[in-house]
């Protein structure tokens, strides 16, 4: 794509984003001409918005203290600090740095042996070696996939009112994990999610994976009980525009559908031109017809020979025959019910219309559900490899321009595609064939796009440093925040692209910086100048996210099962609401030992462990998470049976250590918190051991039992500390 063409694209993006400019509101009241004039002015102003200009590698600034920086990132940061009169604090301790790296890169605490090795390695390359090890670990992909899954509003059910399971959503989850582990170039990663079905492939395995990637577009929340077909279609398209624009471009384009103030006609066309691309796309999410589902959908059968795993075990011949019989029986039953109803109506005696309707619907729903269950398998009982995803419709269509996004108010038809939305009016771009998704994918994942790389480097920075360079990771528009370090952001974006869009390389660059190594300590003088640490004079203390807290507890307790989970429990429930209810109940009762990324994410039915520690709403794009410290978490850690069970496992592990009791307790401290206890900690341990009261019944059972009980209470206390759930 030429630079010139890019200019056109930029201009149109501005047109869309400028919708939210408040000035439009007053202009709207003044009539069309005033609006048009004002629009031009806004367009001019918007063109200067920093995010709509391509990042150009900036000059690395000079610094006074040349000994401090380890690389260019540090030079950009230090230059600003020196200007403001702020002094970076000292580096953090080696233990703290290792713990920080381990959690940030893999979501797990360092093991005792790893701590020993790192402390023993006094060479200059010690940090690099640890970073290489962590980046190569399969745990890296599990950790970083979850960050993307937040942004991709990943979940395994349809959400909203009906909330039916998406039994095949997990394939997308696994694809994302694999992509991060393989360090798939980020531009390819984006292209596959928008148009994987249309991309060239190297064979069935590659093709299957690329189709799975399009699950991104299919797994959004859906109002399956919406009765108006066109409304459902437009809502689906709108959700796709929303997730693509927020996650990949940091723009909230979906605002253009229903925003209250007057739209510039060009802009309305933009939205609907883009909408045409998705209307020409068939979204397959696989939910059978149900009472509350008037929009059943099928799935994509993946090419045979793809070698992808299945969530289901093969059926025996009898089992398969039983499923077939069930379908036949229910089909017969449904026909009988319909015949009866028809006969009753013909005779003019229809005692209760609603009851009859519900009977017919119920019979049909049971049949549909049984068919869905059966259709999971081939004739020979082997499970079919199915996936959610999108395909081009046989016939591409254009969207009518809908007044206020209302399907009842269609206006003129807008040719779909890049023509109006992405390009200047005098540079019409034809969509050569199909929906236009391929064009969209290549445009978004382009080096000429000013947003894609910036948005991603900012996401990565935010996860590693605790705050983004742009503090609104999903909004780089005019209503978003200004970058704290614009040059650094551009530097990172350019380097990221030059590194072949390698996320691992980007992570490596950030975590091997001096800024990343700083201690998370307070400093009065710096605080007086920069209380928010915008200048990065220290590391922020950060609360771990829910998954890392849970995984760390399991890891420390020795009960974490790191083998990847095949499929998901959601894949094995019956495709009806009872199946869903049973699943939710069992998830609440039974402890699980897999990594949190493999826990089933049913919309609005989150596992308690995750919900209590601010897991985001999986119906929304979430580039950042809340990090609260509230009594509910304290109560959970002190009182939840699963936490007590983990403390017992941890205590058993500690009791089996070869050292004496005193050393064992200190060892446990290190296992949980990644450092040796300090004098204050040891005093606290002594006091606790001297004073821990045991109920009299226990005391009668002897000292050993009291000691073991105290150890469990101690292990639980370690889980409960503020330090356990924070990185410093």
């Amino acid at each position: 794509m030429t630079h010139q063409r890019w200019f056109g694209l930029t201009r149109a993006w501005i047109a869309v984003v400028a919708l939210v400019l408040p000035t439009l509101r007053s202009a709207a009241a003044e009539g069309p001409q005033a609006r048009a004039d004002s629009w031009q002015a806004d367009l001019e102003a918007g063109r200067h918005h920093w995010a709509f200009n391509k990042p150009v590698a900036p000059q690395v600034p000079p610094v006074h203290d040349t000994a401090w920086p380890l690389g260019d990132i540090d030079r950009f940061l230090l230059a600003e600090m020196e200007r403001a009169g702020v002094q970076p604090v000292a580096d953090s301790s080696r233990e703290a740095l290792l713990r920080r790296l381990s959690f940030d890169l893999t979501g797990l605490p360092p093991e005792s042996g790893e701590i020993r090795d790192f402390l023993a390695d006094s060479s200059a390359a010690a940090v690099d070696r640890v970073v290489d090890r962590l980046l190569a670990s399969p745990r890296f992909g599990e950790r970083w996939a979850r960050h993307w899954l937040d942004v991709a509003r990943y979940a395994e059910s349809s959400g909203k009112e009906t909330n039916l399971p998406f039994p095949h959503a997990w394939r997308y989850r696994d694809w994302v994990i694999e992509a991060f582990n393989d360090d798939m170039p980020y531009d390819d990663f984006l292209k596959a999610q928008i148009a994987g079905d249309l991309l060239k492939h190297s064979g069935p395995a590659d093709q299957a994976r690329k189709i799975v990637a399009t699950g991104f577009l299919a797994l959004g929340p859906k109002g399956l009980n919406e009765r108006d077909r066109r409304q459902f279609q437009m809502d689906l398209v709108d959700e796709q525009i929303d997730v693509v624009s927020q996650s990949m471009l940091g723009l909230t384009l979906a605002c253009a559908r229903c925003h209250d103030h007057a739209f510039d006609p060009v802009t309305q066309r933009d939205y609907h031109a883009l909408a045409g691309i998705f209307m020409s796309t068939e979204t397959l999410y696989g939910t059978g017809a149900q009472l509350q589902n008037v929009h059943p959908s099928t799935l994509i059968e993946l090419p045979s020979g793809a070698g992808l795993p299945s969530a289901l075990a093969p059926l025996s011949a009898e089992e398969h025959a039983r499923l077939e019989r069930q379908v036949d029986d229910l089909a017969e039953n449904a026909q009988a019910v319909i015949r009866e109803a028809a006969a009753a109506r013909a005779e003019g005696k229809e005692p209760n219309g609603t009851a009859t309707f519900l009977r017919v619907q119920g019979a049909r729903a049971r049949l549909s559900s049984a068919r869905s269950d059966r259709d999971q398998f081939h004739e020979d009982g082997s499970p079919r490899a199915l996936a959610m995803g999108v395909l081009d419709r046989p016939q591409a269509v254009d969207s009518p321009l809908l007044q206020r996004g209302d399907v009842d108010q269609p206006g003129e038809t807008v040719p779909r595609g890049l023509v109006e939305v992405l390009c200047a009016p005098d540079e019409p771009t034809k969509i050569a064939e199909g929906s236009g998704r391929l064009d969209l994918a290549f445009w978004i994942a382009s080096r000429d796009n000013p947003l894609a790389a910036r948005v991603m480097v900012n996401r990565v920075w935010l996860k590693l440093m605790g705050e983004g360079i742009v503090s609104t990771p999903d909004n780089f528009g005019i209503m978003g925040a200004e970058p704290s370090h614009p040059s650094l952001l551009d530097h990172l974006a350019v380097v990221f692209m030059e590194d072949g869009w390698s996320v691992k390389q980007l992570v490596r660059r950030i975590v091997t910086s001096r800024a990343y190594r700083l201690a998370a300590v307070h400093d009065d003088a710096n605080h007086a100048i920069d209380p928010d640490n915008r200048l990065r004079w220290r590391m922020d203390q950060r609360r771990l996210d829910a998954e890392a807290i849970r995984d760390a507890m399991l890891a420390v307790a020795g009960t974490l099962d790191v083998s990847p989970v095949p499929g998901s429990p959601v894949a094995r429930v019956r495709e009806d609401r009872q199946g869903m209810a049973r699943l939710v109940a069992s998830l609440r009762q039974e402890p699980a030992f897999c990594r949190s990324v493999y826990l089933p994410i049913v919309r609005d039915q989150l596992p308690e462990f995750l919900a209590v520690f601010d897991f985001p709403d999986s119906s929304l794009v979430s580039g950042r998470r809340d990090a609260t410290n509230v009594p509910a978490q304290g109560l959970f850690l002190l009182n939840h049976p699963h936490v007590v069970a983990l403390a017992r496992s941890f205590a058993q592990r500690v009791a089996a250590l070869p050292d004496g009791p005193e050393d064992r307790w200190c060892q446990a401290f290190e296992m949980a918190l990644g450092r040796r206890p300090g004098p204050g900690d040891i005093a606290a341990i002594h006091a606790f051991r001297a004073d821990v009261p045991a109920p009299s019944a226990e005391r009668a059972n002897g000292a050993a039992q009291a000691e073991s009980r105290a150890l469990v209470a101690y292990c639980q206390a370690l889980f409960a500390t503020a330090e356990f759930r924070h990185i410093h």
Partner: protein
Amino acid sequence: MASVDRATTLGPRRAFLTHAANGFGLLAYSALAAEASERATTGPLVPKPPHFPARAKRVIFLCMQGGPSHVDTFDHKPRLIADAGQPAPAAARRGGRATLVAPAWKFSQRGQSGLWVSSLFDEVARHADKLCVINSMATDLPAHPQAFAQLHTGTAQFIRPSLGAWTLYGLGTENQNLPGFIVINPPIAAARAFGSAFLPAVYQATRVGGAPRPGLAGRRPGGGDATIANIASPFLDRAAQRTQLDLVQRFNASRLELDGGTSPDTEGVIESYELAFRMQDEVPKVMDTSGEAVETLERYGVGGDDTDAFGRQCLMARRLVEAGVRFVQVTHGNWDHHFNLGTALANTARQVDRPIAGLLADLADRGLLDETLVIWGGEFGRTPHGQGADGRDHNNKGFTLWMAGGGVKGGMVHGATDDYGYEAVDKRMHIHDWHATLLHLLGLDHERLTYRYAGRDFRLTDVHGTVAREIIA
């Protein structure tokens, strides 16, 4: 001045913990418990004097999530009824395609005051003379997440403290063994609406009935059970647990010292544990409704098919404010009636009508209503014109919210929308104005309730807000 320097507020407590961690030996459980209660009288949650005498000491906010239709409930629009079926006016910008829809429910004048209320709220209407109906509410955006955030924090654009957090920061709370700010049945993903943002974490809301599945409010009428999750230990008795918690707190204090003595996160954890521990005793008492008279339960609709869930939550709200909780919010959804307005709105209203009437009556009988401000409202209203076959769209420029008790005039209407109910035209009350008025009723000057953060003083009302003095009794 309620603007408090956080360092001094938390100072004594930090000194204690640091001292304890440095080890003057372990205090006996009883001594620690005494210490805990003493700390509670100096902590950030102790009652603080208001700026001026308060009319309301407590708040119950009945938050109707989704945007209840004002033109079908409390904003009587004869012209809308007369002109039903005609095209929506040009101002609605529907290109003449949408038509005005009359409410399907009859409005009548109720009480001595003759307040107009539709038959959807027959029970609440019995208390018409207690209601101050604000028909001129306005908010910036007609989108749920933004408007819900603005309703609670004043802004959709930034992460800011919740109304309840500001209240707690300004006034503290009367019962140190219960959270001062409780949200019953909070909707999912609305953490920011109940959060403390830059205020100390101890001011954020504690959720009730949300833990295992946070917030079915938007998705299922009634929502979860009104309990606080994990309120008792399956493992340790209370004394042993206190000893365990002392260990945790000493570790926390020693960590705080490592970090240079200042760490909002660690301090937040320390505070949250003390509160959690005290809650374990107090919450079961407050939550136990077995001592309530049968007539009281009936009043709230407890046991009724439609009214049981919300009735229990309203009863819980009364018990909580009675126990000294400063700010209680009960969220009820879903009022987002794009479809099936005729049946769905009636169903939704039926779920709350009786419980709310019961709450008002019960508070009045107990002498609590004078000092308890009850608020009913959602993030916006709905369009006077129809949407689809049987629905109404979002309307942010004019909608209704009412208040009762706590120093507001009863039986009055404040402000008005235009003839059809699109836009507030008389005594417009933007969310900022409502917040200013609400704080005023609580004895707080919205311009003086500030918190210094990142080098400047922040307010709930930013640079806006006018107190509506006409509605104050």
